[in-house]
């Protein structure tokens, strides 16, 4: 292989695929990045056997070929070079690099031994705008479970139906559901569970994407491919059935309180300072308007630290109500709602609370309450 390319492109490409390089692994070659020529471009690929990221960069190809070299060494070396032309040359099992008066030789491993990157072809393909996908990922991915006791909950359920992509995540204490519009309608319904780590990586790469994203699922639903401009991400899919979350969303409520999102967030953060010692319990008390403005009272107390109370304006419909949540869950969800106002629907102190942004039908978030002595 004999190729030359620009330092900037190579460094950027390595940054993109670098996130998929395995850290601790039983297969040492997955610590490497695969460099291969492909249609007069250079393809960089890394995989940790859960996610595989490939990235194509422009290059002058003099001689075709491929090699794998340790990803860390290569990317650290490339990023330390000046922004000039880099010549890459494979000599036997090592990669020779030349840039101005800098030279390096990195010993590598045979490209044939690199795990094959799954081909996701002849399955179903859907299209979505990058901004819609980012918004959806941002609003659900934090609600996935981190422990592996129930593997399906570490992923996000993605359902393609009609003209919408519904993403849902749950960890047993909360549930986030976001409906995003697809570009074009779907002829066949499909449901998959994507590991949250893959979505976090995808989200990062979506930041500077402007073109429509292709999502392809292979026929036996074991892999999903996200095709971005010059980047492809293939992720293994979690196997199993995602819990039927629709029946968890309460259909009715006795109290609806509408508050300003930033005020609610600030008051919750304040209360959380005092809730740290007390299992993170934040108490909410909603009082309907008898004369003038209704209010929401946000408080926390702990034996050692002390207590605090904050009050914000609220439009409360229905009965007065009180409920307690884990403050962290409230902060998580309020931080990703960008609408100015949010509605909290509650019934009893022991039934789940439902949060919906005002003026948007796309997002629902449910939090299980905590049982407290009032």
């Amino acid at each position: 292989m004999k190729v030359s390319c620009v330092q900037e492109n190579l460094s950027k490409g390595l940054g993109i695929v670098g996130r998929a390089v395995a850290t601790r692994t039983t297969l040492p070659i997955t610590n490497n990045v695969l460099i291969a020529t492909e249609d007069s471009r250079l393809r960089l690929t890394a995989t940790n056997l859960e996610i595989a990221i490939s990235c194509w960069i422009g290059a002058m190809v003099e001689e075709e070929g491929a090699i794998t070299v340790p990803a860390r060494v290569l990317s650290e070396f490339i990023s330390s070079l000046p922004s000039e032309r880099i010549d890459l040359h494979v000599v036997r099992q090592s990669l020779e690099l030349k840039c101005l008066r800098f030279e390096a030789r990195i010993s590598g491993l045979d490209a044939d031994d690199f795990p094959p990157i799954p081909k996701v072809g002849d399955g179903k393909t859907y299209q979505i705008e990058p901004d819609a996908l980012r918004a959806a990922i941002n609003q659900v991915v934090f609600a996935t479970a981190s422990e592996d006791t129930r593997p399906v909950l570490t992923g996000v359920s993605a359902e393609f139906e009609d003209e919408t992509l519904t993403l849902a995540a749950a960890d047993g204490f909360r549930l986030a559901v976001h409906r995003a519009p697809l570009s074009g309608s779907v002829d066949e319904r499909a449901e998959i569970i994507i590991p949250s780590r893959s979505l976090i990586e995808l989200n990062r790469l979506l930041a500077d994407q402007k073109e429509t994203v292709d999502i392809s699922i292979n026929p036996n639903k074991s892999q999903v491919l996200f095709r971005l401009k010059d980047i492809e991400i293939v992720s293994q899919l979690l196997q199993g059935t995602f819990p039927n979350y629709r029946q968890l969303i309460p259909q009715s409520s006795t109290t609806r309180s509408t508050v300003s999102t930033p005020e609610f967030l600030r008051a919750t953060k304040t209360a959380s300072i005092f809730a740290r010692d007390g299992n993170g319990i934040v108490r909410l008390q909603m009082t309907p308007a008898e004369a003038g403005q209704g209010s929401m009272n946000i408080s926390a107390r702990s034996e050692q630290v002390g207590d605090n109370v904050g009050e914000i304006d609220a439009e409360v419909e229905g009965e007065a109500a009180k409920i307690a949540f884990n403050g962290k869950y409230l902060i998580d969800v309020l931080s990703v709602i960008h609408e100015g106002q949010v509605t909290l629907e509650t019934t009893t102190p022991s039934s789940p609370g439902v949060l919906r942004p005002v003026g948007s039908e796309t997002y629902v978030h449910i939090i299980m309450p905590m049982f407290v002595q009032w």
Partner: protein
Amino acid sequence: MWRVLGQPKVITLLQRSLQSGRLAHAHVFIGPPHVGKLTLAVNLAQALNCASPDPPCGECSPCRRIAAGKHADVQILDLLSSEVKGIGIDQIRDIQSVASLPPYEGRSKVFILDNADLLSHEAANCLLKTLEEPPPTVHLILLTISRSRLLPTVLSRCQEVNLRPVPLRTARDILVRDCGLPSEKADLLSRLSGGCIGWAITASRDDGVLQEREERIAAFIAMSSAGPGRRLAYAAELAAQFGKGRDRVSETLSSWLLWWRDLLLVKAGDEQYITNIDHRTALRSQADRLTVPQIQQFIRHLRAVPRQLEGNVNPRLALEVLLLDMP
């Protein structure tokens, strides 16, 4: 092709269950070292991922990648090797999270845990859930020397497959037929291996193994007629070896035990069963000088020493007493 030699029953068992699609999701292979447990486990992994109609073919790309340890879906964790020292609950959790994903390139994910008895209690308990009902594409294979070293809760969740040492004659035939050894060498190696073909094959390729044995036997013969001074020097030498690594001394003791077993056999007139067939004359002349009770007494002593060493008796003292006790 199954590459495990001398275990036709086990292979038939696995092949039948593969063909009928009723392979257990978790196996434990039990057998002495070098009997072929790991080879069989790798073979089974190949069979599960093989692309040919008659698995495992050993020729197709998945088979070759698995044999070379490059397949993404076959993980071999040797709990004895220094890399994975202290396999704990974290590594088991890693396995579990990998197991929840579908196979990367093949049809089945196979996890092979060599020396599974070294799993910590926490790790073994953590593994139980996965052992009981792994995802349909996951197979677990535990390898161990003895079933009593595994937790009963682990054993009850796996299909047990016993790999027994091969009978002497079969072992010799295999070595002649499959490894192309001359019959004399095959005879000696099959006896020395105690029916564990893997050991015989290693020894046939590595002359060092046999040479080391030769040196040991030379020492045994020399010690039988040596005075107390030389015996004590030999004991000191062994004790020094023991300080560096326990394995070599336990090897020396076990080949010494075989030597004395031979002496007993020669004395009793059952010469065809002896192990060290290349040293008949030395055995006979030593046996002539001994009585049966003397031999039995020393064998008892020889068997006690490894236990003493394990119990942290001063190695030099234990070995000196042994050598002075030798008739």
